Structures are given as C-alpha cells and as structure tokens.
C-alpha cells in the first residue's frame, strides 16, 4: 500500500502504538496536549539531551556532550552540549535553543514541564554557545531526570522557528524542523500514518555521530488498528515491527516464516521492559488496610497458574517492585536473594516461622510451559533470566490462617466472609484493553482469588486511571509501583511516590502512588536519597532498603515483568536487537528507536 | 352464436390449514352459454359465487381459488377455443382485446401513485404498439373518453382526486378502450348513489351499443338488471338456478328463490307488505344434500333433499333448476 515512488525495500514500516493520530497536521509536541509522539516524532524527529537504554543499562549522551554536572549542594546544574549538531534546516543547535526553550516553558502554563521548571528553576542561562547553567530554588539531585528521554522528557526545539510563532501553544510546527536523523516527508490527513525521510545531513545529528547512518531511507509509522489487522499486515510484509498480544503473536508465527520475536524461541517476549506489572490494593479501603490481608491475598496466588492464564507462561515473575530484567536482577534481585529466602512472616506453620519465598517457582513455571508443548532451556541460570528468579509460595492454607486470625470466616460453601459477617467481594478495576498486560493481571488475579473463595469481578473501565487517582477502586491492575529508569539503578522514581506528604485521602486526586499507602521508615529512605548523587553506591543501598520495606508491607503486589510481545518481520530488514544480540532496547515506539536504525540490515529483494 | 360458453364448470376455494382441508364450492357445476351482442346479467345473494364465476371465466384463478373441473370456451374468429389450451403469453394478449374485466370495488383498481393517463398508457401499450404517440394513443383515447362523456382532464388526475363514481367510470373506460368482444363487469354500481349509478349504467349501455360486444354484468340490484340486461342468470349457492330473458324473469319467475326475489322488490308508490326470503343462505363449504335451496323452500319435496335438480329449458330460452317445474313438465 505504498505509492509507487516510495520503494518498499528502502522503507521501514512500524506500528503506531497509541493509535490513530488525532491532530495529524500538528507536530508541536511541546505543549501539554496529547499529540501521539510515537508516530515518529520522538523516535525520528527529536533528539533529547540524554536518553536511557534499559537493555544496556546505559545513559546515552545525545545532544548533551556528557552527563549533568551538579555543584556540591545540588543547587546548580551545568549541561555541556554536543558540538556539530544542526537542525534539519541547517541551523546549528546551540545553548540559545535550550535557554529559549526552558524560559518559554516556564512562561506559558500550557507548555509541558511548566510546573516542574517553575517549581525548581530559579535561573537558566548560557555561559557559552555549548554550555547551559541552571540555578535552583532549592537543592535537587535529580533535576536532570527531566531531560532524560524515556518515552517522554523535555526535548529541545528550534528557537528560530518558535520565535516566529505568534502563540507557541497553538503553533502547529508544520513542517517540523528535526534535530533527529529524519524529516517529515508526508502524513495522512486522517491520522493513520506518518512518513519520514532520512536527512541528507544525518551525520549532523547525535544518531549519526554516535552510530552512523540509519539504514532505511524512509520510515513509515502506520496505525493498523486491532491485533488481527496487524497480523494481517505483517503477514503481507507490510509491517516490519509491531506490538502484539501473545495470541496474535502465535498467529503471526504460524502465518509468516519471516516473523520473529525478541527471542527466536519460546517465550519469545521481551523480558527487559522496565515496567513491573501487578496488582494495586487500595490501602485506604478496609480490609486492605491490614497487612495480613494483603499478604493473604499474595499467598493465595499460584504464580504458575497466574502467568499461565495471563501470558501462557511467557512472562518473568518477580517479587520486588522493580522488574526482573537482567540489569535489575543484577542490581537488586541477586543482592536481596538471601534476605528473601530468610524472610519470615510472623505466623508459625508446624511450629516453624513461615518462610514465604519460593526460589523454585520459575522451575514450576517451566514444568507448566513444557506441558503446553514449548521447548525451554535446561540451565537454571537461563531459566531464571527467562522466567524470573522466584516468587512467593502458593500457600492458601497460610493465607487462610492470616485471615482467620483477623476475624474473617468461611461460610458453608467455602466462601470468605468479612469480619462483620458479610460476604467478601472484590471488584477489580481493570485496564480497558483486554490485550494489555495490566488487564491480564486482573483476569488472572480474579481466577486465583475465586479459587480461594472470594467473589471477584473484573470491571474494565476507560476511566481506570482516573478512578485510581481519586481512590475510587478497591483493587486495580495499575503498576504496583512507578517503574524505574530502566537503564540506571536509581530507585527515586519508584520509591518517592509513596512518601507520606504525598498521601491524599480517597476522593482527592492522588499526588503520589494511587495505592494510598505510606510509611515512615520509607520516608527516611526517600529523604536520604534526595541528598545523594544518583550514581553513588549509597543510592543503591538506599534502594534496597526501600524495596525491603515494600516487600514486608506488601502495599501492592508485583507479579511479573511487562512481557513485550514485539513481532519483527525479517522479510525486508534483519539484525533486530533480539535477545541473542541486545544492542539496544527492542521497541519501535521508544525514542531509542533511532539508535536501532543504523544497525538494521536490508535484505536485498 | 355464443361468444363464451362453459360446461360443468367447477371452481373451489381450497383452504388448507395444516391437515384440515376446507373446500368452498363457489362455482359448482355451471353450464352456460353467453351470446354475442347481448348484456347478460347475473344476480344472486351475496356470497353465492358471482365474483368467483367471473374470475374463473376470465382465467384469473389464483390460489386459494382453483378450477376443479369443466371447460370454458371462447369463440375466437368463429372457432371455439378451450381456454386452458391457450398459452399464458397468448392469453395475456387476449386480455383487454378479447375480454376485459371490471373488478368488484373498482374504485381501488387504479394504481394510486400514477396519473390516470399513465394507467391508460400502460394498459394500451401492453397490447398495442404506439408508433406515433399523438396518432396511435392520444387521439383514440380522447375519442374514446368523449364518446363515453368523460372529461379529458381526468387523464391528468390521480385516482384519489376523483369521486367514487368518476373513478368507477374511468375504470370502465379503461376496460373498454381496446373494444373488447366481452366486457365482464362485477358490481359496477354498488357503493354509488342513485345518480352516479344511473350514469354508470348509461355508460355501459352506450358502450354496448357503440361497440356491439357482449357485457356480462353482475349485480344483486334487480332494478339495474331490469334496466339494462337482455338475459339474466340467477345464481344460488354456486349454481345457476334459473336463466331467462329479462322480461320473463320479472314476469314469470319459475324457481322458488327467484319468485321470492322478485316479490320482495319494493316499488315506489306501492306500500303493500313485501315478504322476504325466509331462512339463511347455506355455507358453500358445507352444502346441504340435494337442492341447496331446499331448507328455505316452502314447496320442498322429498326428492329435493336427495337430488340436485338440473338446469333444464322449460320455455323458450327460459331454464330453471327445480324439481317443481320439471315435474310439471314430466307430467
């Protein structure tokens, strides 16, 4: 379905994750309005200052020449810019663009980052053409995080263009001027596709400078709709890279011999995604305010059955509030393993204090997977990497004890009654899309808890996020904690939303994490974190402290790492960053996509 | 010479409701001859099968009505043709040129959403080619209408714009435009007031005089018969029970039913008591054995309850189906 003058073999086609673009003619992604940045804008058109890669665990200096330079007391930050980069109209990218951009965003409340910049920035100025200095109103050791691109982040825009615009808010930035390696070639007025063309001067962009020439001459972002449509499109070799459900993925494997996943074998999925899925309990709602109840619900889950239901076994399990990706396994799971094995709940089973951790869980999952007829490696290390290091024991009997001692009872049919004698009913508020891993968590949890004797319903809702924010739910499938950077061990992002001062009662918009849980000990950890450099070893230690508190209290239940079901068609392009060669993160919708393009190899056809 | 004749014609409504079958013997063994250049009237109680008889001889038999037996002959160019032997398409061509039909309730016989001129044209072109619109269609049509005393502007109207009487007359004009040899008219005057009725009768008379064809006219209004017909057949329960020249019927009815019919006719200036026919008409799906009139007949005899009397000629052109009369004859 390409026009004649766009050769298919020189074009790379990827899917638009967030759907049909509502404002196809508008490329001004610098306001708070939603403009589907994943239509190529963040991947091809814009370069950030820094970018984080969760596969390599690297923070990449893009437009910045090196990392942020803080002063002693974290009241000032200096950014050095890379020299030799220019906008697609040939104008060099300099400190003026940065200063102008930051000031514009601070002036106009409709621009994104207006709020955080105003909160912290006192002054911003350049000291030379490639050096920008920020002075803060109060100390902040993590201000640079605003500029780290990981599906968002403040990105520079051309001063000489925006200066001309009457109103930066309504300015449509069309045709857009790129800092990235591609420029806009064409777009669909109806918002289904956007076509990008490689810049002649691609070597004047960080991508070119860092990794060489991006291979595809054209990159097309196309919204195909439902998973079935994507399968059809890829089977017809009209979609090189897409994001699917597990079922659709199996369908495409059957239909297209050129299709592959992140792994070439089962479980195919990306296990390096920095998001941890799970269940969020509303700690302001009885009985979830009781730690015993939260633990009981956790122990009532048979993780093998759970992942089987949710993802046919193809997801890595994890007990911490960070995902069990290789880097986090290295940074946190392995150091905490002994502690987890010795963790006890203050309940005795057969006279022994109960140890809930089950390092054998991934091996049980492997048994299940084998039964389903899939081949898996035998080496324990490989299994742990694929299926996660372990999970909690399936111990409904212990869960029962925990509940009974809190006054819960069971009726004749084996259904749980609340301490006040009424039947226990849980309504899980779920992500509206049934193919989303969040939604799959809800379905799996419902199955587990029903087996345990609780009446569970699953209510998908477009408003699930809003309901979470106002606390208008009891259990939902929101991330159990905000996800970490992915490519950096710092856990400030994960822990700080739980701080006491962010707590808002039900009815008010949540400011921190929607679980409405807080903890004094954790507050201390967070406060200390704010005072240490994010690269320091101390920061890593503090992260572990925080994770331990979360495990003990179990305010939310992490289950498995986000299984990214990407499907790649090797008909026209090869050398994707698969598990066998993970040179960069594997998604087409992340901003890092531009750093993948130089490595792709065309198949001559 | 007869223009149309039937022999032992039977047509029944066959109503199948699951397994139960119900036969309504609406035309039951009718043998009749209709002459050229005459107005033949058929009278009888309502529901006795008059309309069904007309439909059958016009070959407008559609389920549930079925022709069960007997034959119908048309005389075409001096030869009798059995109509079931005529091919469907050939018969279509006969319609309107040889035989035309004015249905009961003909007020609704015109397509309500096309102009009357349009209807005329449809019926005309179904049988005759129009080469020159003006010469082949407009001219004869206007002539026809004015000959019948109808204003030409009806052509521009839609049916609902005309009064009932006017519509009726238009339908008649439409049925006669191709000068058919036989015109079959089913109750063309019921539901009209006397003045309009008179105009319609007049029209039919005029047509017959002009075109010298045959009209078969059904009505249960004996006064209309008296006024226009040459011969009358009296129907009772699906059969013809008497047939004679109009004068004879009124002067000398032979069948007891006809006698009642004639005797009960009110006359202006005559206030003497008029008796009515006693009893109720039989159900055509459940006829009594023997003569169908016997339950109501004051002269009923034993034979009447067992055998069906045949229509036999008693006087010149006067036939009757009653044992009373045939016995007299026999004796």
């Amino acid at each position: 379905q390409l026009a004649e003058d766009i050769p298919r073999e020189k074009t790379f086609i990827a899917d638009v994750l967030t759907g049909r673009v509502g404002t196809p003619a508008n490329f001004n992604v610098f306001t708070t309005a939603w403009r589907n940045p994943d239509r190529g804008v963040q991947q091809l058109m814009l370069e950030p200052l820094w970018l984080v890669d969760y596969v390599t665990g690297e923070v990449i200096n893009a437009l910045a020449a090196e990392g942020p330079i803080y002063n002693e007391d974290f009241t000032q930050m200096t950014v050095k810019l890379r020299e030799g980069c220019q906008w697609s109209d040939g104008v060099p990218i300099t400190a003026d663009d940065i200063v102008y951009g930051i000031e514009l965003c601070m002036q106009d409340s409709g621009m994104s980052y207006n709020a955080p910049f105003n909160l912290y920035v006192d002054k911003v100025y350049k000291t030379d053409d490639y050096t920008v200095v920020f002075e803060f109103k109060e100390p902040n050791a993590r201000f640079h995080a605003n500029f780290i691109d990981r599906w968002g982040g403040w990105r520079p825009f051309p001063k000489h263009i925006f200066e001309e615009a009457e109103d930066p808010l309504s300015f449509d930035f069309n045709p857009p001027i790129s800092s990235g390696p591609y420029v806009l070639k064409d777009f669909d007025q109806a918002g289904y596709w956007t076509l990008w063309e490689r810049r002649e001067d691609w070597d004047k962009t960080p991508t070119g400078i860092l990794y060489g020439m991006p291979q595809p001459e054209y990159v097309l972002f196309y919204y195909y709709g439902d998973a079935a449509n994507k399968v059809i499109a890829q089977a017809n070799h009209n979609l090189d890279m897409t994001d699917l459900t597990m079922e659709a993925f199996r369908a495409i494997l059957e239909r297209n011999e050129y299709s592959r996943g992140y792994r070439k074998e089962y479980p195919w999925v990306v296990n390096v995604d920095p998001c941890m899925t799970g269940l969020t309990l509303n700690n302001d709602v009885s009985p979830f305010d009781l730690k015993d109840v939260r633990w009981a619900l956790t122990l009532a889950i048979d993780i093998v059955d759970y992942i089987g239901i949710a993802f046919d076994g193809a997801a890595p399990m994890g007990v911490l509030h960070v995902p069990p990706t290789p880097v986090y396994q290295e940074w946190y799971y392995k150091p905490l393993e002994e502690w987890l094995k010795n963790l006890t709940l203050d309940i005795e089973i057969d006279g022994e204090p109960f140890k809930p951790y089950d390092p054998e869980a991934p091996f049980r999952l492997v048994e299940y997977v084998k039964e389903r007829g899939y081949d898996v490696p035998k080496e324990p290390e490989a299994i742990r990497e694929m299926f996660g290091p372990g999970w909690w024991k399936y111990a409904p009997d212990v869960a029962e004890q925990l509940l009974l001692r809190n006054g819960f009872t069971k009726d004749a049919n084996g259904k749980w009654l609340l301490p006040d004698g009424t039947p226990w009913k849980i309504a899980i508020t779920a992500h509206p899309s049934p193919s989303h891993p969040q939604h799959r968590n809800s379905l799996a949890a419902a199955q587990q808890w029903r087996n345990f004797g609780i009446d569970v319903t699953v209510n998908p809702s477009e408003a699930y996020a809003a309901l979470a924010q106002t606390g208008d739910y009891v259990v939902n499938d929101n991330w159990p904690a905000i996800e970490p950077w992915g490519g950096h061990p710092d856990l400030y992002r994960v822990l700080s939303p739980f701080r006491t001062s962010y707590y808002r009662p039900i009815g008010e918009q949540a400011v921190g994490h929607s679980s409405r849980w807080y903890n004094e000990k954790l507050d201390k950890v967070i406060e200390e974190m704010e005072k240490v450099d994010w690269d320091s070893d101390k920061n890593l230690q503090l992260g572990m402290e925080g994770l331990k508190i979360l495990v003990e209290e179990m305010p939310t239940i992490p289950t498995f790492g986000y299984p990214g079901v990407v499907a790649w068609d090797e008909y026209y392009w090869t050398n994707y960053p698969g598990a066998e060669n993970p040179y960069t993160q594997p998604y087409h919708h992340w901003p890092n996509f531009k750093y993948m393009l130089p490595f792709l190899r065309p198949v001559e056809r | 010479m007869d223009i149309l004749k039937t022999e032992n014609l039977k047509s029944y409504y066959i109503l199948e409701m699951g397994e139960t079958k119900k036969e309504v013997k609406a035309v039951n063994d009718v043998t009749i001859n209709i002459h050229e250049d005459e107005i033949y009237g058929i009278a009888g109680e309502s529901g006795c099968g008059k309309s069904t008889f007309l439909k059958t001889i016009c070959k407008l038999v559609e389920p549930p009505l079925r022709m069960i037996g007997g034959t119908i002959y048309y005389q075409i160019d001096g030869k009798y043709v059995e109509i079931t032997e005529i091919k469907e398409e050939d018969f279509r061509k006969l319609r309107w040129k040889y035989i035309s039909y004015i249905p009961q309730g003909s007020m609704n016989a015109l397509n309500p959403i096309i102009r009357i001129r349009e209807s005329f044209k449809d019926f005309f072109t179904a049988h005759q080619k129009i080469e020159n619109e003006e010469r082949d269609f407009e001219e004869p049509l206007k002539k026809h209408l004015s000959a019948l005393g109808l204003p030409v502007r009806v052509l521009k109207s839609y049916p609902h714009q005309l009064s009932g009487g006017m519509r009726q007359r238009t339908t008649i004009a439409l049925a006669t435009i191709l000068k058919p040899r036989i015109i079959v008219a089913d109750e063309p005057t019921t539901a009209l007031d006397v003045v309009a009725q008179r105009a319609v009768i007049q029209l039919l008379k005029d047509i017959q005089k002009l075109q010298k064809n045959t009209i078969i006219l059904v009505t249960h209004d004996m006064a209309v018969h008296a006024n226009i017909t040459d011969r009358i057949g009296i129907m009772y329960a699906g059969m013809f029970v008497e047939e004679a020249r109009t004068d004879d019927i009124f002067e000398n009815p032979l069948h007891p039913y006809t006698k009642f019919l004639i005797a009960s006719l009110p006359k202006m200036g005559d206030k003497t008591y008029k008796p009515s026919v006693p009893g109720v008409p039989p159900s055509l799906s459940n006829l009594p054995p023997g003569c169908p009139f016997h339950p109501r007949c004051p002269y009923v005899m034993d034979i009447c309850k067992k055998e069906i009397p045949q229509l036999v000629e008693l006087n010149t052109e006067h036939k009757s189906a009653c044992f009373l009369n045939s016995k007299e004859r026999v004796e």
Partner: protein
Amino acid sequence: MLFFKRYLLPRIVQFLVVVFVGITIVFIVPRLTPVDPVQQVINRITAQGAFLDPAAVDSMRKSLTELYGLEGSMLQQYFAFWGRLFRGDFGPSLFQFPIPVTQLIMTSLPWTAGLLISTTLISWIVGNLLGGLAGYFKDRRWAKVLDNISMVIRPIPYYIFALLLLILFAYLFPIFPSAGGYSVGRRIGFNWAFISDVLKHSFLPATSLVVLGIAANFMTMKLIVSNIVAEDYVMYAKAGGLKESKIAFKYVLKNGLLPQITGLALSLGQIFGGALITEIVFSYPGIGTLVYGAINSGDYNLIMGVTSLSVIGIAGATLIIDLLYPLFDPRIRHR
C-alpha cells in the same frame, strides 16, 4: 401563509423539540462518565514514562481544567454549550486541544460520507429491488434462494462479517489493502490514480456494509410487497394483461418504495455518527473511529459534537423527507 402556519410550522417545531431533547441527552450522558479528560492527559504523559514530580502534577491539573473550559457548574457548561452550538462551534477537542472539534469532524466527514452515502444508496436500491422482485415472484426458485441467503446473512454480527471479509480478501487472497483510506505517500487530488486508490481501499468496508444492508432492505421490502400484491390495482393490472415485468416494477415496486423512503432518510441522516464497527475493523479514517477514540479518551466535546451533529442530521433528514414526501406520493400532495 396558511401553509406555513398549518404545515411547515408544526414540523419545524417538532424538529426543534427533537433536536433540543436529543442534544440535552447528548450533553448529560457523557458528563456522567467518571472519565476526567484532564486526568487522562496527565496519565498519558506520566504513565508513558515522562518524569513529573508529583507536586508538579497538581498545578498542571489546575491549568488544564482552566484551559479546557471545564470550570463552572453543569448548568453553566450547558448554557455555554448551547451558546457555542449556535455559532456552529463545538468548542475545542479536549484531548487534542486546542484543535476545534469542527475541524476534526470535517477531516473525517468526507471519508465517512463518501463511504456511507454510496453504500446506503446502493444497498437501498439493490436491496429493495431484489426484495421487491422476490416478493412479487415469491414462488420462483431464485426468490427462495435469495430469501434464504439474506435470512442467514442478516443476523451475522457485523463485526464478524467485516473481519471475515478482511481475512479473506486482505490476507488469504490479498487482493485488497487491509487498512486505511488511500496509499501511503499518495497525494490527495482529483485524479484517477487517487480515486482508484480510494475505491480500492474502500472496497472491503463498502462491501461489508452493502451486503448486510442489502439483506436488511431485502427483508423489509419483501414484507411490504407481500401486502401490496394483494391490492386491487395489482390484480386489475393482471386482468388487463400487462406484462409481468411492468406490473412488478410500476405497480408493485414503485408503490412499495414509498414507505422505504423514510428509512432511507433515517439512514442517510445517520452518516454523522459514522459506521462505527466497519471503520474500526478496517481502520477506516472516518467519524466512527473518531468517536470510538473520543469515547476511550473521554473527549466530551468531540463526543458531543459528533452526536449533536447526528441528532441534527437525522432530525433534519426526517424534516426534509417530511417536506419532500408529497413529491413522491401524490396522495399526500393533493389531499
């Protein structure tokens, strides 16, 4: 004058009442949803990974609410809504702020209108034609076959039917493109290359609409005709020896189409609502997908814009048909 007072006025009043009631419902229902558009935007920005200090979120929420014109009581918003409506302005889209809703609708409308007007007309004409003929010649073999086919096709869930077409003709036999309104990179213009491209892309969606539409029209028309054939004038036309084809078309079909005209008006009025399911299945760039997206993102203004237009469209179509109907039916014209 009398015509205006007795005939036109009541109809216009009726039209206004319908529009008023409809639009009020349209205004109220979306506001009962728990979807908070401001929260949706914030979630989208934060959940996808942008780092916002939670304290900053609060002030952002305030400014967004102000920007989107969502302050004030329901009543104030309601009056403001009517005020804008009279100016032909449905306000800015909340989710794609500050693009006006009208503009969003206008970019999608040509696609939907092109698809729906043509398919509605085709299925109306073909469905009624076949239905009328099958009703008149109901004992013929082909009529019975058609009858059975349409009886089985009609109940197939729309979605399934569309998906089936997609899998068959875009995948197993990839004759037609599976998605979109025209080829990527093709310049929009009034030239054969573009038009044939558009036709090729809309073939499958159109087919799904046409086939099911024909089946539906077929069945209604057959029912109508079964009553018409019993009318005196049909029987009279037969007695008059008219050709079967003439009777079928001029005496049966023509009369049977009259009641179907209202149905046609209603369907044409519905184009403002889009062909929801078809558009979703075929990723067709019309109003249906726009609405679906708006509902998913809680874009009040867009939903109200589209649904209000639908109400006005349908009410307007019925009004126009009411006023035009006398042209088709002389009985009404000359009463």
